[in-house]
Every structure is written in C-alpha cells, then in structure tokens.
C-alpha cells in the first residue's frame, strides 16, 4: 500500500533491505546511552532517552524473530560495516520506541506502487512484512512497525529468564 512517489526510509537488518514509510518515523537519531532492563523481554535492548523522553530501544533483528547470528550468506553490503547507532524513533500514544536496525541507509521515493508479500519468506519475516517496494537502493521488504513493536511470538509468553 505504498504509492509511487511516497518517501521510504531504507534500513538494513540481517543483510536484508527493509523499508518503512518515512511519515511513520518521527526521527532518526543516534541512541547510545542505553541501559539494560533486567527481567525484560529479549528483543528489548533497553531504555534510552531523547529530549526528555524515555525510549524503549528495540533490536530489530530480535524483534523480527531471527536469531542474531543468522546473518545468512555473507554479503557485500554487510561485510565489515559497523552500525552507526542510529535508530528509528516511533511513537504509539504515550509510548516512544527506538528501533535499531543494523544500519540506516537512505531515504528515497518509491519507484512504483508496492507489491504484496511474496510467498516463501519464512514465518518470522512474513509476520512483519506488508509488501515489497522498489527503491533506488533496491527491492526492500516493507515492514509492519506494530508487528515489530510487539516482538516475536515467543516474547509474549516468555520473559527473559533471569
């Protein structure tokens, strides 16, 4: 449901190109000072802050439900590149979140209307995808932000064991 020309924010996680609508993101910021939340779910990295707001920092890989080491095949884009600490800041009412991808890449307009989710993505990816969109950087999977905020299925029933 992205229309041609809409601005898309492109990020990378686990060697995949991922996209979110630019308007859904409040800002992109470096979030460094993250304190851990003992007893919290795995996919929540911890608490951060931005301009007197408390942010819940979410590790996108874990939130999607793919194991952190599962980077898939070695790929040019990811080799040796460090994350620059930038996160996507989104809000849901009183709650503010920082979504941390491996890297934030670019903002670009969609080349054409988005296409539906293809088959064969795997359960974890299918849960968080809403379609595929073509951008200057390449084909990117359009993400469902709420699905990411919710965390992987397991997290809702299991709190990280102390």
């Amino acid at each position, binding site marked *: 449901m992205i229309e041609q020309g809409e601005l898309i924010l492109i990020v990378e996680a686990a060697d995949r190109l991922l996209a979110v609508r630019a308007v859904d993101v409040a800002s992109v910021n470096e979030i460094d*000072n993250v*304190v851990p939340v003992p*007893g919290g779910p795995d996919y929540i990295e911890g*608490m*951060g*802050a931005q301009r007197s707001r408390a942010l819940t920092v979410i590790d996108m890989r874990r939130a999607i439900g793919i194991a952190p080491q599962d980077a898939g095949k070695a790929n040019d884009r990811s080799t040796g590149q460090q994350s620059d600490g930038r996160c996507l800041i989104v809000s849901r009412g009183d709650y503010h979140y920082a979504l941390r991808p491996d890297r934030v890449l670019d903002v670009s307009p969609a080349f054409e209307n988005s296409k539906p989710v293809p088959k064969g993505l795997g359960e974890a990816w299918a849960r968080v995808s809403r379609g595929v969109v073509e951008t200057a950087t390449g084909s990117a999977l359009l993400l469902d932000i709420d699905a990411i905020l919710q965390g992987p299925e397991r*997290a809702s029933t299991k709190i990280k064991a*102390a």
Partner: protein
Amino acid sequence: MDDLLAEFVAETREMLAALGSELVVWEADPSDKERLDQIFRFAHTVKGSCGFFDFPRLEKLSHAAEEALDEVRRGTRYPNELMVSAILAVIDRISDYIDAIDSDTQLPGDGDDALIAALAADADDAEIAALQKSGFDSDDKLRTVSVQRSIRLPVTLLDRMMSGVSDLVLARNSLARSLRDQGGHLELDGPFERMSTILDDVRDAVTRMRMQRIGCLFAALPRMVRDLAQELGKQVMIDVEGEDVELDREMIETIRDPLTHLIRNAMDHGIETPAERRSVGKREIGTLRIQATQSGNQIYLTVHDDGRGLDEAKLASKAMAAGIVTEDELAGMSMEEKHSLIFSAGLSTADEITAVSGRGVGMDVVRANVEKIGGSVKIMSQRGSGTAIIMRLPLTLSIIDTLSVSNAGQRFAMPRSNVEEVILGSDEDLRFQELGGGRFIDFRGQRIPCLFLCDILGVPSEVPVAERTFIVARYTQYDCIAFAVDAVHDHEDAVIKPIAPALTSTGLYTGATLLDDGTPVLALDIASIGLRSGMLIGRKRISDEIEAEESSVDKDQGNHPSVMLFVGFDGGQRCLPMADLARIETIDAAQVERHGGVARAVIDGAMHRLAGLGPDDVPEGKLRLLRMNDAGQDAYYAIRAIIDVVESESEVSPGCDIAEISGYVIIGGKPVPMIDATQIMASVASAERKAEAER
C-alpha cells in the same frame, strides 16, 4: 449575589459538611466529649450566621439541633441512633435551604416543624422513620460536599502549567548539582535557596491541582452507608483503605457515580438482612470493604461485600430472557464470564426494582464510565460468601519523590511514599536471618521479610549482604518488606515517564525517569513486586481477624485478644472478648420487663435475665444485646451501641474488684474495662436457680 451572602453560603456549607461527618464519627464513640463540643460549636456557629443574615427558618432549625446537642453535652439526654438521624435530617434540610439561597430559587416548602418535632426527646419512632423515607436522596448529599469558590479552566492550560513546572523542577535540580560541583560561590546560595523554596511550594500546589487524595471521595461514604443501612434495615460496617492514593481530579469526578452505584448495589442486593445472615451463620453486621491501591501505573479500586454473592444461574436466565445471550453461548461460558453478564445493559436481577438500585441501568453505566477513562471493571463473586468489584484505572503520573538505589552498578528509582526506614547493613540493631526458605531482617525487635533486589532483577550483586542497605517499605498496617540493595544514593523528585507495556507487564517497573545527563533510570514497581513475592500476609483486615477468631475453638486468646468494643448502658466504653461473643441480638425495648430491679426479656421463646442494665436504666426503642454462651449457659448483656471489633493493644491486666469486669486492655491508647463473661454467666445462672427455688 451579594459578596457577603456568597461567603455565608460557602462557609455554612463547609460547616454543615463538617457537622454531618463529625456527627457520624461521634456516634460510634459517644463518650468523646471533645468531638461533641466541636460538633456543638459548629451547630452554634451555623445558628449564629443564620440569625445574622436574617434567615429565621434556618435559625429555627439550627437552634433545634443545637439545643438537642447541648442537652447531650450537659448529660441531660442520652444520644441514640434516632436522635442522630434526626439531627442529620435537619442538617440536610438546612443544606437544601442553602442551595436554594445560592441558586436564588424558591425556598423549599414546609416540613420544618416535623423535623424539629423529631428532635424532641420523646419523638415517636414512626415520625422519624417517615422522615427518612420521604428523604433526601443520599446521592445529593455527596454532591453538596463540593469545593467552594472554584473557577472553570480548560484542562490543556492546566497541563501546560504542570509540564512547565515539571521541567522547572528538573532544571532546578540540575542547577543545584552544578552549583555543588562548582563549589565556592557562596553569594549564590542564598538567592538559590529562596528560589528553590518558592519552587517547591509552587510544585506542591500544581500537583494538587490535578491530583487529589481518593480519601476525599471516601469521606462521604460512612454517612452514605449509614443512611442506606437504615433505609434497608441492614447492619453494615464500612472498612476503607488506601485513602492516600492519589488520582487525577477529573478521574475522581468520573468514578464518583460508579462508586456510589456499586456501594448501593452491594448493600441492597449483596448484603443480607441481619436475620438472613444469622440463619446462614454469618455475623449480623455485614462488611463493606472499599480499597484503593496503586500498582504499576494503574490504580485498583475494589468494592467488596461479604454478602450473598451472585447467583449465576439466575443471572444467566435473566440474560437469556433479555436476549443478551443464547443458551449455547451460556454453555460455553466460564463462571467469570457468566458473572460478567451483570454488566450487560437492560438487565436486572433484582426481584423488585427498589428505589435504591436495580433499574437495570446501573452496572452497564458503571462499566461504560470506567472504560471511558481508559479503565476496566471486573467482578468476582462466590455464592454465599460475597462479591468483589474491581475497577482498574489508569494513572497519570507526575512528579514523584523517589529514592535512588543501585544494584550491580545500575541505578533504579524507588517511590519514597511507602518507605518507612532505611537501614545500613552495618547498623548494630540490624540482624540478617535466613530461616527455612525465607530471608528476614530483625530490626529493633521486629522481624521483617526481606527481598534481595539482585534476585528480583536477576542480576547478581557483588556487594556482600552485610554491606548492603535495607529499605523497609510498608504495604499495609500489618505488612512491610525490607529490600536489600547495594546502596542508596540520593532522593530526588523524578518525573516518571511511561514505558512500553511490554516492560510494565513484567511487574517489575512502573516507568522510567531521566537523569540530567539523559541516562534513563527505571522506576521499580514496589507494589507489584511485594505482592508477587508471596511474603505479604495479605490484607489482614480487622474483619478477617474476626473470622479467624470466631473459628478458633480455644477461648484462650493468648496475648492480645480480639474484642468487641461497645458503649455500655451507662455510656462508658467496655469490651468483650470476641471468643466469648456468640451473637448480637436486638429486641424491642417493649419486650423488657423489670421486676424488683431485675430486667428480663423473652428471647427465642425463653425468659432470660438481662445483664448490663442498672436498676434505673430504662431502655427505649431497640435494645442491643450481646449474647454470651458457654457450655449450654446463656447470658445476655445489654449495651447502648456497638463501636467496632478491634485488636487490643495489650494483654489483659487483671485485678479489678468491680463486678462483671475481668480486667483492662489498652485500646486506642486508653484502658478499657473488659467484661467477664464467665462471671456474668455464672451469676445469671445462680440467680435463676435461686428464683426457681423460691417459686
């Protein structure tokens, strides 16, 4: 309206409200002379103002009330329930007049004379009873006790001010730190302190703008319950807890009506008549327990009654009849789901729709109101035992006083409100103990259960236990828990910000605050942590204690007996061990016969001597009796009024040569004589035998 008149209206309203509530409190302990004097002064002041402003009808009414109170003060008249009711009726009438004056409408018609007649010492019960029925809706009484001289403001303006002050406070804290670090600028200290004090004041006032103690809502409840109980012919004791929990004012207004409705429901449909309660083995006096607690960023408000509970079969059939559910749907429902049917619109399980409640529009409106503010309501009930309605309300947190603690190098914030004590591990009076699977600290003779923060969080601490700091948090009158932390650093005002539901659902945190350098500090959910630890004995309320005492076979109470505190016929306070109390009876004074200084009455078909009445005591109206029972022997002890069931604060100190008294216990800091049930029963028995022999 005239400025002066407006003042009169406002002040008189305040006086009347105070009068009403003090009167009800005094009724429970008529021997409190100071309170009676205060009440009399209120009445006197009201009369004075009414006279000054030339309201002859008002003056007449208040004069009648004042006179009645004066008679009691001087001891020429015994207070009783009827008199108090009559005075309350007069207060209500004056209130109505004040409302009419305020709104510039016609003063209500006649009926004043009837009210004044009811105050006379020998008033007819019927007259008073009639007054109460024609009565003034208890609902309105709740409303007249409102804040005077107010103005309307858009809420957004208030919020802007509040967040401005919040930021000001944080800026001040940060400035304070910088000043400390810089050091040496002595000439800045004075002005800074001044600014700081003023800011604290402003912050206080601003917090009060939005937040209000829920106790303000609770204040009107004893009176409401009393009036309703009388109207319904039931005996109900109200138990209120959590008055200090603070809520947004707007929210308090929104739950006022639902709370009223729930209480009415509980008293009307839940709590049974004394006779019915007796027949199922319950105490005659029903208990209504209202409790407010804060957990995480929610407030829980519970209305609990120990009445007959929900009849889910009846509820289900009514719901089916009303077309709300089908038989198939019912078959698949759990007990709790069936109970929740009570929140459906258009449903009433009351056999008669009484004037008090039961029009079938109540419970669904309650739920709608609560959900409107983002809360939820749940019902839990057990047939025969009682019902609990639990309202969950979201909390808008503002600035909270917190203690900054740490574990394994990470800081956390603990709310300071419940903290009773902070004890260093090195304190000589502190001893740490591990007993069985539990941990405790022994501090100044008190053993307190202990939790380690490192265990709660699952992050090990490197600090040895003996070097930690113990923070004692109080939960209820009987429960506290000591939290062992690595260190306590600071106390500061913190703005607690909401955190993701995924984090609050762990039950560990209520929010997060930010330090000046932007580091987030998680705020611990002490309430939830304590509850889930299983170390709290539970809401050990007085009424729970009664249950425990009543079921104990052994009459030997041990150290601090649980007693029934009451007013004897001579007006003095006395008490009777709960273990000796079999039942409370009420009979008509007309049933009492006096011969030769001995009072007798026919109770349950047998003639009994009544103890507790002096040779000149002539009971009027209804007579309350405490029934004692031991090995087939009965004795009935006449009293004027029941005060409460309490736990004595001391052991029984014997040595009293007054007949009927076994000794004294300390209650409320004062010695109260304890009735010797054994002796009374023995003397009644021997007197009966003597009488038999003589016949």
